């Protein structure tokens, strides 16, 4: 019986390998777990976009909100922008982190495409981006009322992402069961 089993060894190995590789097909290798999940948003003190006035961490904390990392040089940000305007219109508080961008270009962008943001942090050097572990725009962080990062989405926020991932979490955190 034992030599018989040995004959099947290559087949067993093949099936095991195929199972692993098949699983790999549906994994996104670009998705990195954020080191910041369930940790408080880092402290910062940066200018408000286009102004001298400073904005701090405490200005963002107090309610469940989105923090959206964007820039005018980021093509995908233009793609997601209309949807952000739409959900901001539904009453979702969104703060912007204008990441390594030119203030004038960013102001033009908001004037042209609409401004979904409660306030925009001008992170010209990318220092807050670094503390957040941002490695490319757009990225969107979900903050709870205590200012703890609950979720991070890398890439475009569109209807599908909002309805399947972000909105359920958002509603759970705000304590509303349905409706925004």
């Amino acid at each position, binding site marked *: 019986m034992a030599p018989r089993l040995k004959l099947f060894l290559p087949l067993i190995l093949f099936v095991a390998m195929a199972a692993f590789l098949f699983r790999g097909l549906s994994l996104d290798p670009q998705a990195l777990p954020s*080191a910041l999940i369930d940790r408080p948003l880092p402290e910062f003190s940066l200018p408000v976009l286009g102004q001298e006035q400073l904005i701090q961490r405490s200005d963002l904390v107090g309610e469940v909100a989105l923090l959206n990392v964007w820039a005018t040089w980021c093509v995908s940000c233009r793609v997601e922008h209309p949807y952000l305007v739409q959900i901001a219109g539904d009453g979702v508080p969104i703060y912007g982190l204008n990441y390594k961008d030119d203030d004038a270009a960013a102001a033009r962008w908001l004037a042209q495409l609409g401004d979904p943001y409660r306030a925009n942090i001008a992170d010209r050097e*990318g220092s807050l981006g*670094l503390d957040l*572990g941002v490695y*490319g725009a757009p990225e969107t962080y979900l903050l709870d009322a205590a200012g703890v990062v609950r979720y991070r989405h890398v890439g475009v926020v569109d209807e599908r992402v909002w309805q399947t991932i972000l909105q359920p979490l958002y509603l759970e955190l705000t304590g509303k069961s349905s409706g925004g």
Partner: protein
Amino acid sequence: MKMNVLVRVTLLCLLLLSGTARAVIETYEFSDPELEQRYRQLSTELRCPKCQNQNIADSNAPISQDLRKLLYQQLEAGANDEEILDYMVARYGEFVRYRPRFSGATAALWLAPVLLLLVGITAAVLTLRSRRGQRGGAATLNGDDEQRLQDLLGKTEKNS
């Protein structure tokens, strides 16, 4: 002769051009050669979060440029390797290190090579043993052959 000079000048120009082409990645002036050594070491050990299969020394992605700049600043500020790696891991996760710390999540990564080596050695030892066993079994001679062997051995002993 004139042509020769022209060729030489052209070659020289090409040589100079190749120098600038290679210097795309910025260079930093270190106050201490030991810091530069550590900068090289750490920048090859840190992974670019955006491009994933490159270290930050090889990658020209904006995030890698930022991380190199940060690395330079921290080295000049006198941070030790452990502090710098902790700083990076706190922001980008254990993923950012090509040599992640040993923990529950990375145990499989660290132990798999050792385990596979042990499995391989065990398999090799078992295979060799069973083969030797077979050969040992086949090596028993019947009476006639044994007699011939002894005769032959006796002959060679006499000759030598």
